[in-house]
């Protein structure tokens, strides 16, 4: 029972990270129809900067602010400079571009910090909560709570606010949205900024427990994408649920079988997700009408 509970606790923490990255990918997709495989780099950039600043002696709150700000700015610049002028490109090419930016970010980080693994102190210290022998740290609880809250806020945002509707409209049809008075560019910038914020927050909460390095971006992105894929790329709620499900499944496989089998599992799950969405009538092979 202890092992099971511990696995679940750790998985919920992992799942929160996947969820935040996954929801970030959903945000980018909702406003631009682009699959942003560089989303994990917001996590990396934020974590690395915060850790570096703490290492230079700056107070945690300042470093944290700087880290999150860097993630937001990076994300917004990415949309503005890299993606905006290329929106009419083929989706495959755009995925490649986002991957290219991810590689570039990794390359810069590799140059700056080398192969070091960096970390900093958690925001919430104190005794872990112990249930039946299984422990979960206050930071972990904060992370889970934050994730659920943010996801809930985003759901409300998209469903009930004008801004949320505007953002969705921009992805469907930027030109017509423009004619209706919505500034498509600003909407996209906003959503990419929000995605950057999510990456930054997840780094702030998770790096103290798992560390960060130049190459943590892509694997995280893969997991986040799996969660987003389950959500059909547009639903934050489903992305959260899928992320938790994935993390728990991975955790169970890791605890009871073999840690190296975790990724083959993710792969299997992705296939199932794909097959599930098969039956969702791909009429006219994706075109609007014949």
């Amino acid at each position, binding site marked *: 029972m202890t092992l099971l509970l511990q696995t679940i606790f750790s998985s919920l923490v992992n799942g929160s990270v996947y969820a935040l990255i996954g929801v970030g990918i959903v945000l980018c997709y909702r406003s631009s129809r682009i699959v942003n495989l560089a989303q994990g780099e917001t996590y990396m950039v934020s974590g690395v900067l915060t850790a570096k600043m703490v290492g230079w002696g700056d107070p945690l709150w300042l470093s944290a602010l700087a880290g999150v700000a860097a993630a937001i700015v990076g994300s917004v610049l990415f949309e503005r400079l890299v993606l905006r002028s290329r929106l009419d490109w083929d989706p495959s090419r755009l995925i490649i*571009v986002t991957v290219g930016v991810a590689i570039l970010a990794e390359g810069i980080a590799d140059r700056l910090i080398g192969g070091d693994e960096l970390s900093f102190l958690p925001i919430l210290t104190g005794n872990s909560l112990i249930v039946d022998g299984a422990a979960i740290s206050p930071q972990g609880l904060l992370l889970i709570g934050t994730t659920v809250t943010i996801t809930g806020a985003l759901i409300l945002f998209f469903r009930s606010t004008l801004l949320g509707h505007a953002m969705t409209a921009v992805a469907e049809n930027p030109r017509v949205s423009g004619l209706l008075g919505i500034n498509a560019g600003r909407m996209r910038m906003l959503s990419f900024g929000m995605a950057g914020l999510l990456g930054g927050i997840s780094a702030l909460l998770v790096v103290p427990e798992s560390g960060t390095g130049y190459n943590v971006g892509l694997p995280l992105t893969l997991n986040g994408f799996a969660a987003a894929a389950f959500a059909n790329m547009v639903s934050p709620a489903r992305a959260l649920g899928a992320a938790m499900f994935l993390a728990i499944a991975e955790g169970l496989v890791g605890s009871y079988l073999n840690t190296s089998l975790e990724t083959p599992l993710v792969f299997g799950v992705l296939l199932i997700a794909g097959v599930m969405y098969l039956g969702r009538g791909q009429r006219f092979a994706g075109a609007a009408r014949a």
Partner: protein
Amino acid sequence: MSALAAGRTRGPALGLAGVVVAVLALAAVIALPAYGIPRLTLNLAADVCFFGIACTGINLLLGYGGMLSLGSAGFVGTSAYTVALTTTHWHWPLLPAILAGIALSLVLAAVVGLILVRLSQHYFAVAYLGLATAFAGLITAYPTATGGTSGLTTLRDLNLGFATVDTNFGWYVVALVCVAIAVAVFQWAVAGRRGRIFKLVRADALVASVLGVHTFRTRLGLFVLSAFFPALAGALLFPFEGLITPDTVGSVESVQLVALVIIGGVGYSYGGFVGALIILWIQALVDTAGNYSLLVYGVVFLLCAFYLRAGVGGAIKQGVETLVGRVRAGSHDPDLRVVSEEPRTPAPRSAVDESSTGPPRDEIAPVMAKLSEHGEHRARAGLEVSGARRHFGGVVAVDDVSLTLKPGTITALIGSNGAGKSTLVNIISGVERLDHGSITLAAQDISTMPPAERTRMGIARTFQVPRLVEELSVLDNVMLGREAGEASVWWRSRKREREHAVTALRRLHSAGLSHLQNRQVRTLGTGERKFVELVRALDEEPAVCLLDEPAVGLSLEEIEHLQGWIERLRAAGAAVLVIDHNLDFVQRLADFVYVMDVGRIVRSGPPEELLGTREARGSLLDPARGPA
């Protein structure tokens, strides 16, 4: 190394001088390691070859299938580890081990492809990426067998039985042989009809299936074939490097392979090699300790992704073509006309040559007479729709519709937008399911027949918005009408292709479109596209022809020309259905008119009665009149 894959508009043909130059250039490139360029050693060159081979698979899948391979390293790994395991644990000789490695990769590709190929773009890309990561994970999960993260090692020699290769030079020769194999397979896969069909499936799977292509099988076949290349590279990578680790075959490697292809040029058979040469060499030059290599990589990759859409290879090819063009132009006396090229007629005002008022009767007759060659069931084939019904959720798009298309007549279907006309045509051509009712063609029930079968039985259609393959030429698009459904994509006969080309050219000529034959469709206007689509439909020699708003977007002259074509179709015995909003056009043309509103046929009758007077037209949808 001219890589003009079929389907591309035909470039300038190389004369003898051109071939000699190409061969010399190729030899110069192969001899690169001999020039003493820093870091460009035989070893690096062989590496470039193997990476390039793996990349060629990605190139094929992306360039012709539109599918992004973010996980090819998984197949490199399958093959490499198979060779490693069989030679290390079971002491197999190398050659059978290599064959086993390739075979196993192909089998894996077939199994995985069954699911993967069905996925839409995003899922496919990521699932494939997951494959490579999963593979690396599996390797590390069983370290006793696979050596775990440290991997497996061997002596760097290739014992072929009749010879042993263990020098750098020997390996380079082996690598070049493999490159030749890879390029040959690539060229074979995209030759002529095959390349056209792949591009069709990629551009518009719906039209592909309507024209008779088994889209799933085609894409699966392409996927498995594309796995051959990384498998070949992987099988030889193990003895070449003497080492295989999970890192070499994980997700990062896969993504880097894609980067190489993007840099080198997608769609060109040598793209992967150009990209591999550039990146591997730069990496060797800059800093093998690793600190800069990733950065340089990222920068070069992005620059190419942004600014060189066709990659370095494409830029080179365009450069060569421009150069060849200049040389040829410069070598002619400016007073003489360039007779080897197509005579350039000034672009006509309308889509069709105004000099032709319609295809000359004696030209059209032998072409149209073919309609009766294809068996009794095609000539004299009438189409009957009976009680057709189709709903989408709560919306009934087609409600108890019955109509008849008699051979040798033109039937018109008119109605306001949203009445269900296009849906009905989709149902008849098989693109939409029939919820209720039946369709019979020449007394055979085709209600559940897939679209490809219906096309083979003689139903052809055009679309409201012409659906053509943008990147192919007009001639290629028209040829697809006939050749797409002929046989599996892997079959090809040059003789048949020539025959098709001749027929297609003749049809284009009689439609007045031969001046457009080599133009890429993406450069055409609406009217031209409509006619090209019409010619493509006619290339199938149909018994039933469904034309969805053919006159929309055409000028008055073009409409007259269109009318002539449709009348000749009727004269040849086809059953034609025309949907249109232009009531004058319909009245001139039709033998019988159906009026559709909110999914039902509300009126029907001869055109003079329904459309003859303003009063009659005004009350077409008048409920008081009731169905005729």
